[in-house]
C-alpha cells in the first residue's frame, strides 16, 4: 500500500482530470483530457512523428552534451597547465558564467543557421561552462601532498596532469554530469523553441499554437522519457568512473607488467 501510494495518487489525479474535462468544456480546452493525450500519444507514436522528433532532440542534446563536456574539460586542463592563460582568462570566464548562456542564442543562430547544428551549439554552450568550472575546481582541489610526492618522483607537469590532475578533474566533471545533462536538454529544447522544423520542442510549440493541448502533453511525455534515458546513461557512466579514470591514467606498460 505504502509503496503503491505515489501511483495511486497518479490514478486519482488522472481520474479527476478526466472527469473535469468531460464536465467542463473550458477545462478541457485549457488542459485537454488524459484520454485525448493517450490518443495523441498513440497516434503520433504509430505514425512515427514523436519517435522521429524524440531521436532528433536526443541527438542534439547528446551531441551538444559531449562536445560541451569534452571542450570544457580540456579548457579546464589548459587553465591548470598554464597559469598565465588562467590569469588572463579568469575574469572573462567569471563574466561568461554569470550570464545565462541562452542569451547568446541570437548569435548562435547567425553562426550556425537554424538547423540541427544550432541546437547542438546551444546545448554545447550550456554544458561547456559548467564542465569548465568543474574541471578547473577539480584541478585546484588536487592534494598538495600528492602533487609534491609526484614531484619527488621527478614527474613532468604533463605527467602530473595525466596521473593526478586529470583523474581529480574527471571525477568532478562526472559528478556534475547529471546537472549538465539537464542544461544540454534545455539548450536543444530552447533552440527548437526559437526556430526549428523538427524535434520535440518544435512539435510541442506547434501543437500549442494550434491549441492542441493533448499533443503538447504527449510531447512532454516523450521529453520526460528522453531526460530519464539520458540520466540513466549518465548514471551508468558515473558507475564506471574508476574504470574510466584507470583507463586514461594508468599506462599500458604498467598494466601489462602488473598482470604478468
Amino acid at each position: 500500500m505504502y509503496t503503491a501510494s505515489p501511483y495511486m495518487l497518479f490514478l486519482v489525479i488522472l481520474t479527476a482530470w478526466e472527469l473535469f474535462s468531460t464536465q467542463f468544456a473550458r477545462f478541457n480546452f485549457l488542459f485537454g483530457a488524459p484520454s485525448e493525450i493517450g490518443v495523441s500519444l498513440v497516434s503520433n507514436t504509430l505514425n512515427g512523428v514523436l519517435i522521429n522528433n524524440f531521436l532528433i532532440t536526443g541527438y542534439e542534446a547528446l551531441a551538444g552534451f559531449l562536445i560541451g563536456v569534452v571542450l570544457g574539460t580540456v579548457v579546464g586542463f589548459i587553465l591548470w597547465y598554464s597559469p598565465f592563460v588562467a590569469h588572463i582568462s579568469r575574469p572573462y570566464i567569471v563574466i561568461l558564467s554569470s550570464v545565462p548562456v541562452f542569451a547568446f542564442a541570437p548569435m548562435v543562430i547567425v553562426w550556425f543557421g537554424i538547423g540541427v547544428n544550432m541546437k547542438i551549439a546551444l546545448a554545447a554552450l550550456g554544458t561547456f561552462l559548467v564542465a569548465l568550472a568543474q574541471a578547473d575546481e577539480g584541478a585546484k582541489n588536487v592534494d598538495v601532498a600528492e602533487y609534491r610526492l609526484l614531484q619527488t618522483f621527478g614527474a613532468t607537469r604533463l605527467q602530473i596532469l595525466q596521473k593526478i590532475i586529470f583523474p581529480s578533474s574527471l571525477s568532478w566533471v562526472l559528478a556534475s554530469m547529471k546537472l549538465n545533462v539537464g542544461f544540454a536538454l534545455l539548450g536543444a529544447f530552447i533552440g527548437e523553441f526559437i526556430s526549428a522544423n523538427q524535434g520535440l520542442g518544435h512539435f510541442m510549440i506547434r501543437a500549442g499554437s494550434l491549441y492542441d493541448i493533448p499533443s503538447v502533453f504527449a510531447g512532454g511525455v516523450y521529453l520526460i522519457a528522453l531526460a530519464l534515458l539520458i540520466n540513466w546513461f549518465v548514471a551508468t557512466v558515473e558507475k564506471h568512473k574508476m574504470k574510466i579514470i584507470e583507463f586514461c591514467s594508468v599506462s599500458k606498460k604498467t598494466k601489462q607488467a602488473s598482470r604478468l
Partner: protein
Amino acid sequence: MSLQSSQTKQNRVAAIQTQALSKHYLSNGEIVPVLDSISFDVEKGHILAVVGKSGSGKSTLLNIISGLEAASSGTVSTNGSLAYVPQRDLLLPWRTVLENILLPTEIRNGNLVAAAAQARQLLAEYGLAEFETAYPNDISGGMRQKVSLIRTLIQDADLVLFDEPFSAIDFTARLQLVKEVRSYVVFAQKAAIFVTHSIEEAIAVSDELIVLGNRPAQIIYQTDVVIPQEYRDPVQVRKSQNFQALFEQIWKLLSKEI
C-alpha cells in the same frame, strides 16, 4: 669489530649535509622565520631522527632537502638520488596496490617488468602478496602505509626522507615498520632522515637524533643514539640502558617548548 668500525670511520662521507640552513616566509609583508640555522649531516647506513612538536617546521625542512622549496639562506648538499615517504600514504584510489607501487617507475620510464617482480617480492615479505590487485580503499590503514613504504623502497634511492610516516597507523603495525625501516637503511646502506613526534620511535630508529625547538625551529639538542640492534623497536627500546636518560632529556626539552 674494531676493524669494521675503523673502516666506517674512513667512509664517513656525508650523504646529506645542511649548513646554517634558514627559512622564512613572507606573510602580509612580515617576515615569519620557520627554520633557524640548521646544520647536520647524515652518513650512509645511518638514520637521523628529527624530533619536534607539530608545526615546528619539520616538513619544511624535508621539503627543502628534497628540493621542493628553496632555503632562504644556508646550504643543502645531497649525494645521490632521493625518495620520500609522506605522512599520509597518498595511494591513488584508481590504481591497484601493485600499480601504485609501480607509479615512480612508470613516471621515470623505468623497467616495469623488473620493478613488478621486485614489488611482488616485497609485498610477499610484508605479508601483502594476496593484495596486489586490491584497491587502496579495500585494505587497512596499516597495509596502505606498508604499500606506501614499498613504493619508496622500490625506487632504491640513496637517500630516504620519512615524514612522520607511521603517525596514522595502529601500534603493532608501527612496531613492525620501525624495525623494517631500520634494517633496510642499515642493510642497504642508505642515508635517511626520520621525522617524528614520538620520542620512543625516534630513539628506536636512529643513529643520531636532533631535537627542534619551536618557531623558528633551531636545533636545541643533538646526540648520538647507541642502542643495541635487538632493542630497536619502540617497545623493546625501553629496556635498553641508555633509553631512560635519553628519553627524559628530550622530554624535558620538548615540554619547555610551548
